[in-house]
């Protein structure tokens, strides 16, 4: 007997997947599947939806019904699925470019409508599938193929955006924090209304390679050391102290009970 815990959720014939060596997306897939498993959801009642990009290849490896849609539009398709049949459990995989650039409008409106689904955004701070172009989440000063002199545009804070737009549950963790990420996704799945979980992931091929992370493990280490708990960030803000440079907040941003749409009948 082997203990491949969530093997039944993967399409065995499709693995190994196309993600590069050390890509964090596989880790986030594990966390999502573990969370779904903990919820005791049935494979046949669960739909994974995604757009285009590295992150969006994830549903193709999952043994449920899955919808791999057009770039940025995953949330619109998911809205259609959930509103037409609220008995299905809908989980959306998206990336930073997919959710915030081309799909920014759909993202804020899905949060506003608060449709009962869980959105997992794998934020690798870059467009990975097209070879490493700058995205709205590429930090200032970082190198990508379209920002060869360092990115100059301010970044989107996706979690804060989701809070402002009205999502019921918003959390951010990294692919290093697998336990916390799994728990955040699980809370999201259990929450009525839209849950947005931003998972910071390493992209060794397109991002790390150009930004002084020689190995995938280096970038994971960086995420571990540069993630500060949201509570600490708030405390620093209250005390009027600056947040250390390049650090980002992790934790549960909001958990509330705004009225939701498309809740199971």
């Amino acid at each position, binding site marked *: 007997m082997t203990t491949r815990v969530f093997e039944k959720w993967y399409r065995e014939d*499709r693995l190994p997947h196309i993600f590069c060596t050390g890509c964090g997306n596989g880790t986030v897939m594990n966390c999502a599947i573990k969370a779904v498993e903990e919820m005791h959801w049935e494979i046949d009642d669960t739909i994974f939806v995604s757009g285009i990009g590295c992150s969006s290849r994830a549903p193709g490896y999952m043994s449920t019904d899955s919808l791999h849609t*057009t770039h940025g539009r995953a949330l619109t398709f998911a809205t*259609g699925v959930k509103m037409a049949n609220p008995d299905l459990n809908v989980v959306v995989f998206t990336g930073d470019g997919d959710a915030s650039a081309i799909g920014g409008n759909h993202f804020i*409106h899905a949060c506003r409508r608060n449709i009962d689904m869980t959105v997992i955004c794998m934020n690798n701070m870059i467009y990975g599938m097209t070879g490493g172009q700058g995205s709205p989440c590429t930090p200032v000063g970082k190198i990508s193929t379209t920002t060869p002199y360092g990115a100059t545009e301010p970044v989107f804070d996706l979690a804060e955006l989701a809070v402002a737009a009205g999502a019921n549950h918003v959390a951010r963790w990294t692919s290093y924090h697998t336990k916390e990420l799994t728990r955040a996704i699980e809370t999201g799945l259990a929450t009525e209304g839209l849950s947005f979980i931003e998972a910071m992931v390493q992209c060794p091929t397109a991002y790390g390679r150009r930004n002084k992370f020689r190995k995938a493990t280096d970038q994971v280490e960086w995420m571990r050391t540069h993630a500060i708990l949201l509570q600490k960030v708030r405390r620093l803000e209250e005390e009027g102290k600056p947040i250390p440079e390049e650090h980002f907040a992790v934790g549960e941003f909001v958990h509330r009970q705004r009225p939701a749409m498309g809740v199971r009948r």
Partner: protein
Amino acid sequence: MQGNRACCEGALAAGCDFFGGYPITPSTEIAEMMALKLPKAGGTFIQMEDEIASMGAIIGASWTGARSMTATSGPGFSLMMENIGYAVMTETPCVVVNIQRGGPSTGQPTMSAQGDMMQCRFGPHGDVATIAVVPSTVQEMYELTAKAFNLADRFRVPTFVMSDETIGHMREKIVIPEKVDIVPRKPLLKGKLPFEADEDGVPGFAEFGRGHRVHVTGLTHDERGYPDTTDPEVHEKLVKRLYNKVESKRHEIADYDAVNTDAETVFITYGPCSRTVRQVLHDHPDECIGHLNLRIVWPFPEETLKIFANAKTFIVPELNLGQMVREIARHTTGEEVLSMPKIGGHIHTPAELYAAVEARK
């Protein structure tokens, strides 16, 4: 009844249970009417944030087994193109109503035009084959909308109702039939792969939540639905099947009226221009003027041109600078094809059309 309302009634009679839309003149009445009636009929109405989202939502809803529809006009139709291509690739049945207005761009929102006839056929990138119905009366708007759902479900393609402002905002008496034929989608049989075509080129529909565990992707995929983007054979086989499942059935799909089939001068029209030609025929009952009214323009029913065995001239009045006339010219064998374009928002007058007939005498 108003044309746009007839469209809603037709859709509801055909069992439409999901509408995702965005307001745009001159199609807004359809969304308004659906918002009023669909929830009471047990369906779902949702107003999306734009037309791209509307198209996405109806495709998503369609995969849960719903008969889904959206309505729009020129600018919104252009926005939908990407997802229409997705619907073609993933063989998602859905109905898109386009109440055409003057273009390009914002153009004439409250005026009539037929400028999107080529866009509905060649709009999405790549080789696609779709079905387009064009009503010329409010009665036809009702019937053809209902028919569009059946065609979409039978062939698993996005089907367009290419109406225009004239018919959409026209009020006419209509006869609502007791019952509208509903041909449901063919379900996926046990043991078949989700994209394995039957003899007619159309695979059974693997509805979400029924245990088919289907992977739906806009990437080139094999019969299991798994992406295979590098094998030229897989791509050729898939795209040719998607194309031929519609194009090879053009005889079956064709829907038209032919009047005075022995005439030498024949009008070929679709949509509101057919009304003007009917008036010309009514005003000149003694003259033998042929008239072919196309209710389905795509796939183009080329064999209908052969009905007019004595034809010397085909006259094609259109509310654009000549779009379908090119398709007609492509299929004629020696007959003269005369285009009568008209843009600006008004339709042809009977006198204008009759003058063209006079000139041929």
